[in-house]
């Protein structure tokens, strides 16, 4: 961990607290481990929000979370005494009971902590350059995911335009899959639909999805044999420096060639207005 002017001893000047439903290897790397009962994240965060504002909480409510009042009070005390606090959260919070409500509660706790000291929160992003996908989609379309262009401009509605929902409903009639293997990770009804429609896969390997696809194209590996850019989870862009030369083309080149081939075909939308001043 970096040493700095204000934290000259690096890791020793920092306090790390882990909250999880079981003691993992990360618990050993942290100074304090709090074992929360599965599905009780929202309750625990809400209790912390009450405690930082010196509000009373019932012993029973605290007991339900699996963390003791003493531990909660100690945590709140440490948070308030911190000069700069940061909360990291992952899928254990956002994909369990409560889902986005849990994330919202945590972000609110971080916001409210700023009444006492500097506090921020940041999601721990998963695979590789998923942050880059977010960033690029936002600047080109305004939205981070779950987008449709079916009116000729971007619209956004997770639940309606998000992939699992679209596939399970059987809405989409062709799929282009890149840098992902939904055939290995998605619910069975979604996979079944991918097998029913023409699916096209770009991947360095023959994946589960490749095996159910109509077209597979082998491409080079980002950062190993393909150059470019990837975003770190705090949205800092970093250059990729491939150590190997791949016999396969890059994703960028293949997508561009497919796009150019489509651009030569008849355009799907008739000529009309260039712009609408307000969407209704």
């Amino acid at each position, binding site marked *: 961990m970096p040493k700095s002017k204000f934290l000259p001893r690096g890791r020793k000047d920092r306090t790390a607290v882990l909250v999880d439903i079981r003691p993992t290897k990360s618990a050993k790397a942290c100074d304090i481990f709090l074992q929360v009962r599965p599905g009780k994240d929202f309750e625990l965060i809400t209790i912390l929000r009450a405690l930082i504002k010196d509000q009373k909480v019932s012993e029973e409510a605290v007991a339900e979370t699996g963390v003791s009042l003493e531990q909660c009070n100690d945590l709140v005390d440490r948070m308030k005494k911190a000069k700069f606090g940061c909360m990291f959260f992952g899928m254990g919070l956002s994909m369990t009971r409560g889902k986005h409500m849990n994330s919202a509660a945590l972000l609110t706790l971080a916001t409210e902590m700023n009444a006492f000291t500097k506090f921020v929160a940041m999601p721990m992003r998963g695979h590789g350059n998923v942050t880059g996908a977010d960033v690029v989609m936002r600047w080109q379309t*305004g939205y981070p995911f779950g987008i449709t262009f079916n009116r000729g401009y971007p619209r956004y509605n997770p639940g309606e335009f998000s992939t699992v929902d679209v596939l399970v409903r059987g809405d989409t009639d062709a799929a282009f899959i890149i840098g992902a293997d939904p055939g290995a990770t998605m619910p069975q009804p979604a996979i079944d639909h991918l097998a029913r429609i023409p699916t096209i896969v770009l991947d360095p390997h023959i994946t589960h999805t490749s095996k159910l696809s109509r077209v597979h194209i082998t491409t080079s590996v980002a950062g190993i044999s393909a150059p470019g850019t990837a975003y770190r989870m705090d949205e*800092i862009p970093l250059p990729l420096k491939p150590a190997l030369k791949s016999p396969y083309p890059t994703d960028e080149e293949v997508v561009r060639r497919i796009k150019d081939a489509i651009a030569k075909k008849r355009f799907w939308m008739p000529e009309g207005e*260039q712009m609408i001043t307000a969407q209704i």
Partner: protein
Amino acid sequence: MLRITGGKIFDPANGIDGEVRELCVSDGKFAASVDGGRTIDAAGMIVFPGGVDVHTHVAGGAINFARAMTPEDHRRTQAFIRSQSRRSGLGGMAPTTFATGYLYAGMGWTTVNEAAVPVLSARHTHEELGDIPIVDKATCVLMANNEIVLDLLENGEYERAKNVVAWYIWAAKSYGVKAVNPGGVAAWKWGKDAKQLTSAIEGYSKLTPGDIVTQLAMICDDLGLPHPMHLHCNNLGAPGNISTTLDTLQHLEGHRAHIAHSQYHAYGGDDWDEMRSETVQLAEYFNTHPNITTDAGAVLFGDTVTITADGPWQHLLYKLTGRKWGNLDIENETGCGIVPYTYRPSNLVNAIQWAVGLELLLLIKNPWQVFLSTDHPNGGCFWRYPEIIQLLMCADFRNECLTKLPDKIKGRITLPELDREYTLYEIATAMSAGPARALGLHQKGNLGVGCDADIVIYEEDDDVARMFSHPRYVIKGGEIVIEDGDIRATPDGQEFIVKPSYDPGTDEFLQPLFEDCYTMAFENYPVEMERMENPDIRDCVPNS
């Protein structure tokens, strides 16, 4: 090749005020004469140099965070529909990159300056700028809260600080230096701010915001940057901040500077209830100090999203409004906050802000010193500039708007006493020739032979807002990009950068400091030249 005949030319850079003249364009530049090519008959029309926005936020981590925070606005705003050759886009408070280009060009603006770039995410800013079509771009890099620079200034190492600033500008492939709330954003890491020019900054024993102002302005002059220090003063938005602003201007000690969005820095009174306009004092300072320029940072009523490197101010704005708040800390370099906001005429503070922006534009006498801006998107969206032009050109319209403000505003603003109306020549100066000169872009905002053929042609119309919202033709680098309200072409713009000279030992000095404090590899930090899309390296003229 192109010839424009019969139009009334407004070209303040060459002192031409409405004369009917012919313009010839060859190879993207104005020429003395031209053979063949298209002729535009501009009889009865008004010809301006393309607009230049000296201060806007259109690309990079901050505006992209604002896009993420405002999907509800994207869903209701202007939509640009995909064509076979042109990308789709959304306008609104935080437009997408493609829409940003279409909207700027659509109202005749052809050059923009992205005014706040952290070095650490400069690579991101350039990627976005590459996706903004049509307009040319410049950037300013954030320096006034960079810990390495601040440590050097604290220790009195001016020469080394100068070299480090030059190194950072080139690492970011930037064009100028931006100072935001000098010292205050560094203090925000501790939840503090810096409001007094002469008090030591949190975390430092003697360095003050005033020291940073003086020395960064001097560094920009000594490096000979085409654009002087671009300064967002301390204590933005707070009642009574006029004293901070005047104190800041005195700390320039005669150096050149561009003062960003002065509207937010010209308030009197001790609290929100007592807030009043202090534009007379501030305008007087500009009127007697020709070495400094400013942009208005005017406020327009309606919805917007505020984004600024001024983290502590944004926390305060969140507390005042209770709306969404996003905060980004950019390691040792700077910070950023984002809060959606609605300016309402019924709100006394907002009404004062609206008046203050216009007062500055009207009270600063020389249009070469005060430029059109809303500090997009902070005071309002850039695509609403024609509304400001109308307010500046039509005193009757202004007075009509004044009647809608709360009664309590009486005695707190100067606007009702001002009857000045901008002429077309003055508008052309404040929207194009002036900001181009302040940016040191002498080939812009100028219809003279050899300059870039960026032109906007309006059909004369008594409805000023309509005339400026819907140019008949917009020409960028000699190519017709807008005609009769349609987008005809979306060429890529250029990006202006500078390479100020610095001591070659600067890398060796920075590397160990960098490896101690930063989270990325020193080697991976500078933006590679080959990543830049259409870069144009402009000259620096250093003081010897």
